[in-house]
């Protein structure tokens, strides 16, 4: 009887979970066509990227990495190191899976940037949008990824498409934050000078703010890529094939060797992507 003071009364109950379930079901039923089309489009894109990666012979891919590294980092030593690491992935028997994983990562990054850059620019100039978007970003970053994977799977079915969706939600945050931060921290007097010389709003953005903020924006892009790679294993849980799936299978079967090798392959991918994109932000800093 006096329990009511100690325990939360059971009769006060907000059944939010049911409402959300209903809503997702409602979307599924009424907008099924839309999600079907979305799924088909995304699948097409992922496959396109996957096919293009597959067309490139393995040795050419390694050569490209070596030369791009030389171009960006100015060192053949690093180029050969990265090339050798990729070669290792091949010897593990994971070349094809790597391409599959890469196609998901690349698609996710493309969408993250397509969304993130304009949003970042937008909230840097509008205090109102900023106040609205910030808490949403915080929520996206702290919410456990599985939570939005469930509705994603319900709406789109298992596979690579919900994986891309979940990855974008997770990875888009840093590019938004750092784009807006970079633009806001551009020297006020420089922006004022641009205004004083008769620049239009667009000219200030394109010729002054974005170029001046570029090192910071590149850091954001780098972080977005890293987070996309970090989602690989999580995405495997909703049926995205590739290196992540390999890790998952190994965990289920407690095959340590297989798991570790697949894990190492993911790390190799991450390192190469990180170093190559970091070089952009470092260059801008000089």
């Amino acid at each position, binding site marked *: 009887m006096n329990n009511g003071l100690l325990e939360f009364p059971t009769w006060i109950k907000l059944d939010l979970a049911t409402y959300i379930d209903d809503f997702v079901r409602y979307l599924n039923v009424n907008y099924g066509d839309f999600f079907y089309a979305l799924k088909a489009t995304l699948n097409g894109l992922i496959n396109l990227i996957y096919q293009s990666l597959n067309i490139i012979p393995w040795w050419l891919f390694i050569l490209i990495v070596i030369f791009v590294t030389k171009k960006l980092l100015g060192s053949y030593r690093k180029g050969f190191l990265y090339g050798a690491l990729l070669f290792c992935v091949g010897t593990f028997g994971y070349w094809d899976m790597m391409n599959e994983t890469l196609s998901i990562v690349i698609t996710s990054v493309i969408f993250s940037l397509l969304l993130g850059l304009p949003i970042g620019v937008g909230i840097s100039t509008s205090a109102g949008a900023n106040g609205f978007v910030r808490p949403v970003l915080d929520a996206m970053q702290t919410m456990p990824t599985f939570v939005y994977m469930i509705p994603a799977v319900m709406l789109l079915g298992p596979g690579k498409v919900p994986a891309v969706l979940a990855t974008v939600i997770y990875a888009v945050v840093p590019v938004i934050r750092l784009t807006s931060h970079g633009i806001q921290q551009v020297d006020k*007097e*420089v922006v*004022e*000078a*641009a205004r*004083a*010389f*008769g*620049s239009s709003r667009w000219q200030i953005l394109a010729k002054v703010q974005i170029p*001046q903020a570029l090192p910071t924006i590149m850091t954001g892009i780098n972080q977005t890529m890293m987070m996309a790679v970090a989602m690989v294993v999580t995405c495997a849980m909703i049926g995205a094939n590739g290196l992540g799936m390999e890790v998952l299978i190994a965990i289920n079967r407690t095959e340590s060797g297989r798991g570790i090798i697949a894990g190492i392959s993911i790390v190799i991918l991450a390192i190469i992507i990180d170093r190559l994109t970091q070089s952009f932000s470092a260059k801008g800093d000089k």
Partner: protein
Amino acid sequence: MAETILKVKNLYKLFKSNDITANEDVALKLLQEGADAATVLDKSGMFAAVADVSFEVQRGEIFALIGLSGSGKSTIIRCLNMLHTPTRGQILVEGSDITKYNDEQLLELRRTKIAMVFQNFGLMSHRDVLSNVCYGLEIRGMGKAEREAKGMEMVAMVGLEGWEHKTIDSLSGGMKQRVGIARALANDPDILLMDEAFSALDPLVRNDLQFELLRIQEKMGKTIVFITHDINEAFKLGSHVGILREGRMVQVATPEQMLSQPANDYVRKFIDNVDPSKVFSVRNIMVTPSCMIKATDGVNIALQSMRNNGVSSAYIVGEQMHFIGIITLEDALAVRAGKKTFEEAVIKDLPLITDMDTPVADVVELAASAKFPLVVVSEGNVLRGIVSKASILSSFCN
């Protein structure tokens, strides 16, 4: 002769304080009754950065605006190109009120009529020197080749040839501001706004740039509104000086007038800071005589040249600018009428300044007693320039 290019009439600029009850009308009324900024802030919640300021700037002059930090100088100059929208008042550029301009007209105004130079330079570090200088031309849509040719001209004008492809970060402060000036001049504006443009520079570099500015202004005839908190700089550069105090204009006058008739104690206190040691040497204030003829030219050419230049005396030089003397209008007329020979008419007995680095202070008495501007010659009696009483007065004021 003098033509008003810029006229500021009863300019007010109020900023809202954090007080949500801030009331602009109450503030304006109080200000019109002569209340000071503190009272206005207290009673209306509005901060009066500029209150009832009026002044006029003539084409081709340097108008110096001086006041302590926070007196509203930057706010005023930012109203002159509408970076700030005035709360009340008119700003007439060549008679047209820019406070009524729409966005398009404002862009046009900033692109062609008014350019600005900033205290901390406001240069874009992702562009090199030349491309900073060309910025204004670029956003107007001028082609690359054309704007870079124009840009190079300006780079040369400020003495930065050879630096055009250097990064901004590799330049010293003085050089950065030269880039700032070149960028402003590249637009070929009628009016140049300079907000404490030299305040961030050390004294020697500052002196250099002040001189450079006078040279450029002499050459290009730009109208300049120059803001400073340094009375020496204001008097050195300004043909008119306005003193601001808490957003109100205390006095607008020429440096000479201000010295002889300071409006009140506040102005007097400012003037007490004028430091003669900071003023220029002869080199910095001498100008090329507008009417110069060769000894072999004869009296008719002398008269014609005087008429063309609207002056009443001509400087006569021999081969290689060797200085010979002066001929006045009356004497030249007498020669033509046959009353004198050319040789007799030339005044040769003149005080000369032989060292261009003589401080202006040392030639003041000489200039005061001389009938003509002082002639500056270098080794071998080569004419280098003249120093008029007026230029001495505006540079040396104690």
